[in-house]
């Protein structure tokens, strides 16, 4: 039992390191090779955990080899776009300028029922409302409605408003987010001053955020 326990820990950290090296692309599985890699990694990693007779190197060697090939492919694909067309399928326009492309549907082995179902998942009940529907390389469908079916925006109503941008986390559960501080070019002292004004200690902060208009939001622990 203890061997299984130790092997599981080792394999877990090796997998963690592997996924860390492979990065966000692997999590998103943008390419076919990335999907294959993810499937293989999980199968290979489980082998020495479930079978005590297999040396742990039988998982480590394939993991490192697969990661190396995956990284090399990703690098080559990013440098040589022609290679991209050979190794991965380009996006397909299933609806182009409002017309369903029957050839593309057939090429991607997608039935009209499946297309309608995917559009419904995007809250579109009628394909005639769609200007473009593109089947991306990761298998997801991007849908762009026709202008008359698009959601109304402030621009359509000629209303101006300032961009609030996104919220940037500065303190989370009492701990500084150094990365965001550096990115925003802000200093801890500014926020410490703010907290002193509010008579709140840093370790009592659940969440402190700032938006692109420098508006600070604070949530105290236990609130």
């Amino acid at each position, binding site marked *: 039992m203890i061997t299984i326990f130790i092997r599981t820990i080792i394999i877990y950290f090796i997998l963690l390191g592997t996924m860390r*090296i492979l990065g966000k692309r692997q999590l998103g599985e943008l390419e076919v090779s990335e999907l294959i890699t993810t499937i293989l990694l999980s199968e290979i990693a489980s082998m020495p955990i479930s079978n005590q*007779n*297999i*040396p742990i190197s039988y998982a480590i*060697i394939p993991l*490192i*080899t697969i990661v*190396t090939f995956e*990284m*090399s492919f990703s690098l080559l694909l990013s440098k040589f776009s022609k290679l991209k067309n050979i190794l991965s399928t380009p996006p397909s326009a299933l609806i182009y300028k409002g017309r369903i492309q029957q050839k593309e549907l057939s090429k991607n082995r997608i039935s009209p029922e499946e297309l309608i179902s995917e559009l419904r998942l995007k809250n579109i009940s009628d394909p005639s409302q769609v200007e473009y529907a593109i089947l991306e390389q990761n298998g997801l469908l991007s849908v762009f409605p026709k202008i008359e079916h698009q959601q109304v925006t402030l621009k359509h109503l000629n209303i101006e408003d300032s961009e609030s941008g996104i919220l940037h986390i500065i303190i989370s559960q009492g701990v500084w987010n150094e990365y965001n501080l550096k990115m925003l070019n802000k200093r801890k002292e500014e926020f410490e001053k703010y907290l002193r004004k509010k008579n709140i200690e840093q370790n009592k902060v659940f969440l402190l955020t700032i938006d692109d208009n420098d508006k600070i939001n604070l949530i105290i622990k236990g609130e």
Partner: protein
Amino acid sequence: MRGFIITAILFSIMIIVIISNTFLMNEATHNMKEAIESLEKIPCQENEVIIEQLANNWKKTSIWISLSVSYDNIEEITDMISSLGAANATSNVEQFQIHISLLLNSIDEMGRLEKISIKNIL
């Protein structure tokens, strides 16, 4: 790029380990086979010393060899060496020679995966 460099370093270390393991494994199997071939064909007292030496060397070798050889295979060879010693002690010629043959097969099996061949790959 940093990820690629880390991967390349890990891959290089792995290749070095694989190549070293191949050499060490070939050396280990060669030494064991040599020791077995130096045995007298019939059970005798001289064989006891060689078998004991073989067992001691195997005990040390099996520690690092377990990196690339399955537990079943290692246990099999350990049992074979013990059986060989027992066969030598009983002075049963037929049994002794059978055990030599079985031990040689197990050693070949142990070294098989470190030999590059179409048969192994397929």
